[in-house]
């Protein structure tokens, strides 16, 4: 399946979705008011991916900011993986950003898939 790559904008993250290595990466900020327009093709890509996923899937969330509209989409998106095997969410945060770390823990509590926490520059 096609690799998907989107560049970052003022209010949307850089996105790389690569089925060959089972890697989904979101970097930057996600603040769109209209989350549906931005995330619909991503959610569609994920649904197709899940029909024949890679042996392992790593989802890297390297966000500096996200708005509450995005948090709904993230929950929805990550929940799609809850019945899959070998999926890990890698949740990145700036070292001093305890809010972002806490957000990760909240998502982990809401979704039954493993989370790993990492700091980023």
């Amino acid at each position, binding site marked *: 399946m096609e690799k998907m790559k989107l560049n970052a904008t*003022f209010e949307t993250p850089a996105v790389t979705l690569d089925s060959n290595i089972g890697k989904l990466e979101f970097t930057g900020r996600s603040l769109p008011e209209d989350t549906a327009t931005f995330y619909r093709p991503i959610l569609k890509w994920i649904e197709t991916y899940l029909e024949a996923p890679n042996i392992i899937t790593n989802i890297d969330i390297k966000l500096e900011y996200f*708005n*509450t509209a995005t948090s709904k989409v993230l*929950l*929805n998106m990550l929940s799609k993986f809850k019945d899959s095997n070998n999926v890990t969410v890698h949740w990145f945060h700036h070292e001093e950003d305890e809010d972002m770390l*806490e957000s990760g823990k909240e998502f982990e*509590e809401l979704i039954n898939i493993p989370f790993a926490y990492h700091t980023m520059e």
Partner: protein
Amino acid sequence: MSNMKFNNLKTIYELHKTMEENQVIIAYEGEFDINTTQSVLSLAEKNLDQKLEKGQTKRRAFNIAVECLQNISTHSDRNDEFPNSIFIIGQEGNEFYISSGNTIKSSKVESLQKKIDQINNLDNEGLKQLHMQAIKESLKVEESSNAGLGLISIARKSGQKLDYEFIPVDSNNAFFSFQATFVKPE
């Protein structure tokens, strides 16, 4: 301030003085759509970047600004008679005030008031629980009904009580003034 008209040059000076006296950093008054929201947000970020250290502090203040602005464009009940909303960031010493004002239907006042009062009565842990509950519920119901997620997020980032006031503008509409405070850490 009464009887202001745009063709009155004095208005320019009066508005300028009012904004200076109230320590306004940014004010935008007008119709809010996705494009204006983004422009105002970009301007807000530049100003916060200058006034706050990078890192957690700036991120929290910026997050409040994002939710505040998006509350205006998502939840105001604009109509031909009341098309405009207002967004203001002010600063007094270490305190930043992030404010919005928009018209909503009078029928929504009671539930919005209840929502904010509920948020104001909770401590950090209570807000966390409310957030978890609200985000789960928000997935069940369709769009737009964000179950107050934005307000909860503002309260958590602010760490202060949310201030608000409803001013009836006619029999069907009320003006909703909202203010979040953000204290710059020592």
